[in-house]
């Protein structure tokens, strides 16, 4: 009982950062449900939540109730899961390849997803029986497999991994352009571009039941390897000298981030910036230790992407701006401020 009276080293940051962090997430989710193209009063949102969670039986217009519970809530939850997943992937890859520029799309996942999506919609692969999402997921994993094989053949170091990722991305981007040039007309190409820029409008409950477990698994695996991630930032040889099975940890963590990123890309398209910037921004707040960096990045990524989604819905009335545009438009200046602030503090 004495331990509970005096918070341990892990408990203190949990109270200090965890409580406001989760409060911010709750507020963001609520905002994601209340704010949208059509204004719905807060009281109605509360009534719908009460109906579903407590079977309160309030009378709400079925269309409005459906918009709240079946469109906006799943959309907001998937935005949170994507933000958290991309931020986590960014943290892990930056640690493993020891490169500040590493982002979740480093290993060709995004380029592969585009190729898969184009193969389905423009080449007609699957004969109209499979959707863009499935094509994107298959393309993303194939691209990563190729990049991983290439990196292995080149010697398996982190520099080789980054270079293989660049080569793979270029190859798959070229394939995408080739398919579009070969058989698409303007109308089809547009459908793809719309999707590639990131779009959450098609998100429903089944997507939530895919995104949330994937991110939860990723989060637990990251926490499990906290010590290894800390060691990796000092290089693979120092990690090995600490008794860490470098190859095994690399395979597990890179495989996990690829699965997570591929799932997110196939659900909502390639949303840039989150995976690159959130980890850096959080490092300024929490320091480089992964025990704090991982939960902080996951939370911040979730809140950031919900905020970006809300912004994308209201920035131009009556029109939804691709969320990838918003993440960069809002995120880049914000990140610049953090960089400058950090310099003046140092």
């Amino acid at each position, binding site marked *: 009982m004495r331990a509970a009276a005096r918070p341990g080293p892990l408990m203190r940051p949990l109270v200090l950062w965890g409580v406001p962090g989760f409060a911010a997430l709750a507020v963001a989710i609520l905002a994601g449900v209340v704010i949208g193209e*059509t204004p719905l009063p807060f009281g109605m949102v509360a009534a719908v939540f009460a109906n579903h969670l407590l079977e309160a039986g309030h009378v709400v217009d079925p269309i*409005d109730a459906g918009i709240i519970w*079946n*469109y*906006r809530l799943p959309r907001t939850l998937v935005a949170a899961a994507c933000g958290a997943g991309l931020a986590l992937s960014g943290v892990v890859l930056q640690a493993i390849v020891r490169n500040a520029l590493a982002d979740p799309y480093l290993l060709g996942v995004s380029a592969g997803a585009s190729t898969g999506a184009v193969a389905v919609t423009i080449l007609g692969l699957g004969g*109209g029986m499979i*959707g*863009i999402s499935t094509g994107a997921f298959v393309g993303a994993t194939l691209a990563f497999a190729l990049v991983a094989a290439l990196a292995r053949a080149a010697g398996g170091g982190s520099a080789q991994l980054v270079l293989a990722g660049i080569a793979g991305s270029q190859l798959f981007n070229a394939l995408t352009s080739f398919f579009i040039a070969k058989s698409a007309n303007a109308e089809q190409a547009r459908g793809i571009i719309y999707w590639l820029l990131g779009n959450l409008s098609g998100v429903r409950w089944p997507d939530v039941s895919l995104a949330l477990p994937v991110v939860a698994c990723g989060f637990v695996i990251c926490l499990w390897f906290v010590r290894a991630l800390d060691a990796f930032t000092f290089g693979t040889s120092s990690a090995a000298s600490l008794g860490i099975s470098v190859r095994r940890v690399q395979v597990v963590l890179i495989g996990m981030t690829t699965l997570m990123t591929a799932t997110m890309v196939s659900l909502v398209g390639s949303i840039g910036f989150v995976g690159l910037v959130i980890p850096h921004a959080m490092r300024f707040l929490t320091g480089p230790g992964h025990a704090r960096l991982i939960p902080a990045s996951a939370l911040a990524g979730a809140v950031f992407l919900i905020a970006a989604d809300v912004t994308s819905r209201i920035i131009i009335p009556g029109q939804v701006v691709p969320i990838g545009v918003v993440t960069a438009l809002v995120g880049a200046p914000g990140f610049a401020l953090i960089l400058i602030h950090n310099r003046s503090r140092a």
Partner: protein
Amino acid sequence: MFTKSLTTALLGASWLALAQPSLAETAYPLHLTNCGVDLVFDKAPESAVTVGQAATEILYALGLGDKVRGTSVWFTDVLPEFAALNASVERLSDNDPSFESVVAKRPGLVAVQYEWHVGPQGIVATRDQFADVGIPTYTLPADCVGKDNTSGSDGTRTAMYSLDSLYLGVAELAQIFNIPERGDALIADLKAREAAAIAKARDLALADASAVFWFSSAEMDIDPYVAGNGGAPAFMMAALGLRNVIDSAEEWPTVSWETIARSNPTVIVVARMERRRFLADDVEKKLEFLKTDPVASQMDAVKNGRIVILDAHGMDPSIRNIAALEVLADALAGFGLK
């Protein structure tokens, strides 16, 4: 009944009065201004290549099938009445033909449906490029009259589409090929059918009926492509007394289901097409979505079964607009709307 026949008679009389009597022969040289390009024909072209199904079907309907050396840009099967004829005409490509494949046919005219194929930014070629090799091009006025093709992904209508621009295209093509009387006869037939369909719907005296035209969606649940307030569907809705719930000047804007469901249209029109790029191209998938989506299924039109299935190419400016108008008018009459 009296009102109906009177309206039909009045509408019929008005087009008869407006229709200009054509000479049996075109007077050459024929000068035309077509979508901002001046054309001069010294004689009727011997042959033609078409870029766009609507242009192809107009030439067929004018009885010019024997002059067509090649077709391209097909959206759906040819109209059944032209199936035999079309089988004997070479199809240069299902989609966009290359510039050289068109030129290789040495056509006396290239008849074009859309400016994004042959036009200022044409992906096949510009009209100048064809003019440079001595091939005149004719673009259906339906794609340029009251339409700005430099903005919006399918262009933006500055004025609502009207069948007059379609009839103008038919009349001018008939003039170019020296068959003005055949053009007049075709236009008269189409106009009579248009008037009858409109009269049928007007008889219902719809007070506040609204509609949405759903073309397709990039993904099943994603924001769908729906008809804006300027294209052929908007014209049909206005002509038949329906209010379009979509407020956008774009030809096919994407609008969220949230907005569509809340505007709760009286009637939902879904497109049937053979294209299978997106899951939602399949009309059955669209109907399934409407019945199963938790929000869309709550719309009055879905609950009351007021869903009309319409040929997708009939939603593009083409002679199919008239058949689409008829299908829609018949469906409205069957819904028992007040």
